[in-house]
């Protein structure tokens, strides 16, 4: 009996120890491809891709397996759970087997990781890039390469808009957008909707749509007016326009402003998909979620530019850019770096890689080979292309120059307090202008 007990205890301890070992990666979904490949690993190096986009987690794993089958180089793909990329990356990079391929979200993200980034200037994959606009540079070094281009704007429900007696062609400026939205809001019972705009939720699952993406527009116009691409001290020239569009979002909405603090991204999505709201600010990445439900067909959705009433906005297109940059870990062994560069190049040049990126993942990729059949069938992307074809100017993603997460958070908090009536607009101005200067100087 005692012997049995001892064995049982030992077993429990062993289980406990392995459980501890496994727990460190519990927040990430790991997948190691066939172990047969590992025998060749020593000679050829290996790839460890730490992926940022949870929407495409399974597709990356599949692509990695395919590459291993073709070349014998093992590819491990780990995807961070939503919202945990930075924190998990910090611990992953401290490990002996650190990721060889990881992502940063733009110049600000690069600032904290540039000591770990390999110079990609001489790499094949850099040669595939359509334009230098899609590369992250530090001096003359190329440290990051954008691999997906995304677009956002105001997604709208064509059927409901037509039911209200309008078409997208009627909306060409902030004033017309406001007129249409106000009219829909006034006749919401007749049209069977809850409001013109889906709820502008300020829960952390949704607040980035406003504190980051919407805030991009006043920053973009200010940069345009001053002819700059980044600044240490923002002036807030277009903050009144920011206020106007935010007022519109929160007044012509499906819910009371006092409920915004707990509204989530899923709330807004479901309101839009169920036809309770006509407009929904989000981007091309939301297509998969909208289509999944099946109640809206591809013909029923389109995307409008976010008009804020700035001068010259009749030529404004959608907001297009990237916050997904590939970086290669320069502390990895030489074989691993080479294996990683080969893998990246394979992804954007081989048929299998291109097909996976555009068809399975639905990406628009800024590389030479992605033309014709290698463009995804996403109606929101088609809408974005149409605006470019019509000669509209795309709005650049200036929010990658926002000083820090803290700046975004304090702007978001001030926006929320203003909307629910517990704060005033001056607090938003302070957070926007003074906060920018303070955070920019703190980052130096």
């Amino acid at each position, binding site marked *: 009996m005692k012997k049995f007990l001892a064995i049982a205890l030992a077993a429990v301890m062993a289980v406990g120890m392995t459980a501890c070992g496994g727990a460190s990666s519990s927040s990430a979904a790991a997948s190691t491809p066939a172990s047969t490949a590992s025998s060749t690993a020593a000679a050829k190096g290996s790839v460890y891709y730490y992926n940022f986009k949870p929407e495409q987690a399974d597709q990356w794993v599949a692509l990695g397996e395919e590459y291993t089958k073709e070349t014998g180089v093992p590819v491990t793909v780990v995807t961070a759970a939503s919202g945990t990329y*930075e*924190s998990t990356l910090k*611990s992953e990079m*401290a490990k002996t087997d650190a990721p060889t391929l990881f992502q940063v979200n733009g110049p600000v993200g690069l600032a904290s990781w540039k000591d770990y980034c390999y110079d990609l200037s001489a790499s094949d994959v850099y040669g595939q890039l359509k334009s230098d606009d899609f590369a992250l540079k530090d001096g003359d070094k190329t440290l990051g390469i954008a691999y997906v281009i995304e677009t956002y704007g105001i997604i709208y429900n064509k059927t409901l808009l037509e039911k209200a007696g309008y078409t997208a062609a009627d909306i060409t400026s902030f004033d017309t957008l406001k007129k249409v939205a106000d009219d829909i809001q006034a006749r919401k019972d007749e049209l069977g909707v809850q409001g013109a705009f889906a709820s502008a939720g300020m829960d*952390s699952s949704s607040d980035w749509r406003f504190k980051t993406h919407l805030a991009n527009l006043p920053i973009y116009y200010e940069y345009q007016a001053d002819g700059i691409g980044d600044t240490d001290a923002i002036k807030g020239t277009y903050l009144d326009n920011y206020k106007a569009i935010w007022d519109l979002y929160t007044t012509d909405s499906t819910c009371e402003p006092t409920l915004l603090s*707990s509204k989530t991204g899923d709330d807004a999505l479901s309101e839009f998909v169920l036809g309770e709201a006509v407009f929904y600010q989000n981007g091309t990445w939301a297509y998969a979620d909208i289509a999944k439900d099946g109640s809206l067909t591809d013909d029923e959705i389109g995307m409008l530019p976010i008009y804020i009433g700035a001068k010259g906005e009749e030529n404004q297109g959608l907001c297009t850019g990237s916050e997904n940059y590939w970086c290669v870990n320069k502390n990895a062994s030489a074989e691993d770096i080479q294996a990683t560069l080969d893998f990246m190049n394979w992804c954007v040049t081989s048929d299998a890689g291109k097909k996976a990126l555009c068809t399975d993942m639905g990406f628009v990729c800024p590389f030479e080979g992605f033309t014709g059949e290698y463009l995804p069938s996403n109606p929101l992307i088609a809408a974005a292309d149409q605006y470019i074809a019509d000669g509209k100017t795309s709005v650049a993603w200036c929010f990658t120059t926002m000083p820090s*997460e*803290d700046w975004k958070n304090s702007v978001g908090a001030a926006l929320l307090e203003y909307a*629910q009536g517990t704060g005033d607009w001056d607090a938003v101005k302070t957070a926007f202008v003074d906060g920018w200067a303070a955070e920019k100087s703190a980052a130096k």
Partner: protein
Amino acid sequence: MKKSLKKYFPIFMLPTFLAFCIGFIIPFGMGIYLSFCEFTTVTNATFVGFKNYMKVFTDATFLHSLWLTALFTVVSVILINVLAYAVALLMTKGIRGTNIFRTVFFMPNLIGGIVLGYIWQLIFNGILQYFGRTLTYSASYGFWGLVILMCWQQVGYMMIIYIAGLQSIPGDLYEAAEIDGASRWQTLKKITLPLSMPSITICTFLSVTNGFKLFDQNLALTNGQPSDKTELLALNIYNTFYGRTGWEGVGQAKSVIFFLLVVVIALLQLSATRSKEVQQ
């Protein structure tokens, strides 16, 4: 027997000692060292001296979290212990179904903090909806929500400790008090309270440290919203470390300060309540 115990002592101790080193001593030492460093990953740090500690006290969110945590601890310690003691008194009176009640009161403890936080968030938001508000509308909603949640979770646990303490008080003291004509209030004040001081020491210790170290419930219930106004210390440290680029060392410095604070307060509290304990 003793000799062989001495001989094999290191072998039996080794696994636990190793686990203690890996799980506690090494990270603790590293943590203190890192609080004097600037770093992105913990294995690649540059020494910068006291710079991080200076930054801590210029950070307004830290000072806000500090007094909010202190306030929260005071309120929750008083409420939890008074309620738990009252319930424990009731549960030792021999009411029918006492065992069922004890089990029911204890049950909230079996649910993890994150789950509890989300459940209560739903409950609070469901109620506040009728008034056109949400839990994160104002900081005071979040604060009192957290107090209610902690009471609900902790009262049952403290109750069990108090019941054990109350049951160990010898019955002859009560008999003597009754014969002497003591009122119920006098009995409670002169006999029950002084003799349950040991359990009060334990319970206040547990609730003070729990209050200071609260993290899961805070994260799940409000996540510091609105505007980080309901952010307690532990969450503030977490957000500094992971949320701000270049502030990892400051977060580390905060956690060292936090550790010292909890130790000092816990020791003060222990000596304060210990001195009130009486010998039977």
